[in-house]
């Protein structure tokens, strides 16, 4: 315990990196998810097939493989493109950028399915009613689809988010100094790896517990006026 207090600065700075990583990649994944759901539900053949390919690949390949591919391969790709076209000099993709981008895009695939299901769950009559009232498409999205979509999507979204937070741990493998990396280094130098890994475990537990509270609050907010059926 004394050791943890001695190394608390490293653990806290690592935790902060993990939180930023998780939140930024969440924003990317929500955007990718909305875009993907829109493409999957559109009548455009190309958009449909692109979205289908995207979700299949991203949900079929483990996230660590994609993180490594983007971090090592992406770097080389960007630089050989720059060399060939002469448009830019040597670019270095940071671990943070590779992690945020890849995790965001990967979970965008899961969000796509969640959002798509949520939009489909909205009764069609309501959208037709919106059209009949003379609403344009943006108004219908904002006033009819979005509030209900959030409610239908929340259980799936919560699940995705909890998995996503935990996936950020994988970025330590490419050397980003997140909470796992810092905890590991501290544990190695003090020969107390169990203590430090357990501390990291507890930090993640706190993060997921806090998210759980936030998600419950959101759930209550968006389910106002909805009577839940009681199966018990």
């Amino acid at each position, binding site marked *: 315990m004394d050791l943890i207090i001695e190394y608390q600065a490293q653990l806290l700075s690592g935790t902060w990196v993990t939180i930023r990583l998780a939140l930024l990649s969440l924003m990317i994944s929500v955007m990718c998810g909305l875009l993907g*759901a*829109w493409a999957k*539900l*559109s*009548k455009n053949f190309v958009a449909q097939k692109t979205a289908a390919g995207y979700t*299949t*690949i991203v*949900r*079929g*390949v*483990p*996230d*660590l*493989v*994609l993180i*490594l*591919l983007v971090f*090592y*391969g992406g*770097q*080389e*790709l960007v630089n050989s493109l720059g060399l060939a076209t002469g448009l830019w000099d040597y670019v270095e993709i940071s671990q943070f950028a590779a992690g945020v981008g890849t995790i965001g895009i990967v979970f965008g695939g899961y969000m796509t399915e969640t959002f798509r299901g949520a*939009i*489909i*769950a*909205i009764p*069609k009559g309501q*959208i*037709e009613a919106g*059209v009949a009232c003379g609403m344009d*498409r943006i108004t*219908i*999205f904002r006033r009819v*689809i979005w509030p209900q979509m959030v409610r239908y999507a929340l259980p799936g979204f919560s699940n995705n988010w*909890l998995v996503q937070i*935990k*996936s*950020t*741990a*994988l970025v*330590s*493998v490419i050397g980003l100094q997140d909470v*796992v990396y810092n905890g*590991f280094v501290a*544990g*190695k130098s003090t*020969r*107390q*790896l*169990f*203590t430090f*890994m*357990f501390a*990291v*475990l507890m930090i*993640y*537990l706190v993060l*997921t*517990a806090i998210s759980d509270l936030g998600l419950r609050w959101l759930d209550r907010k968006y389910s106002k006026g909805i009577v839940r059926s009681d*199966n018990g």
Partner: protein
Amino acid sequence: MGESIIAFLETWSPIDIVLIAQNFDRFLWGALVTLQLTVISLIVGGLLSIPLAIIRSGNNPFLNAPVWAFTYLFRGTPLLVQTYLIYYGLGQFEWIRQTVVWEPILSQAWWCALIAFSLNTAAYTTELLRGSIITTSKGEVEAAKACGLGKWMRLRRIVLPSAFRRALPAYSNEVIFMLHGSVVASTITIQDLLGVGRWLNGRYYLAYEGFITAAVMYLIIVLLVSRGFRLWEKHWLKHLYPLDAVEAKPKKGLASFRV
């Protein structure tokens, strides 16, 4: 003919296909290690989860609380950290290093990965099965009671068989999740599919080849597994589909509106 193809690939292909082909047997071995770890941990974790789920769906607080704590801990934290804790962490304790299981099991990366994966999937499967057990329809249980079935007989004959079936779609997700999670093994020196990809890239100083080959092979395995589960579901869940839905394709929603 063959030589000209190879020459063509060597000069024009953006990735070194010849090198991948030369090392393909290693990738197959890697895939075997990945499958081995996944399947064994799914079996061990699955077997562990059955009694745990029965405890979690009962109402004995003394048994329920520790099982809840176990599933909460393992579901709330990353598999990577759990694996590190077991592989790197246990060596911190002198008394563990003195036991007989240290040398053959707890100091070996493969066993540590297996233990971590099994406990992890046991935690997820426990909660999944619990959800399925507590939603068994009351009528079925009452009918079983009326027929004079005892508590264990009811569980074995009525509750569990139907709970297993209803848990199947969610369990297929867990299987794929575990397959994805098994890449963690490569971070503790195991030569699984990703481990071979990392080895190839490290040895020949490459950026894509190893990872792309691993990615494609993971994709193929995942597609095969989910196809298998879909067939399995069709067989075991036939009685739960609405009657006309068995033949008719599900309607696509939102035909008249594009977001």
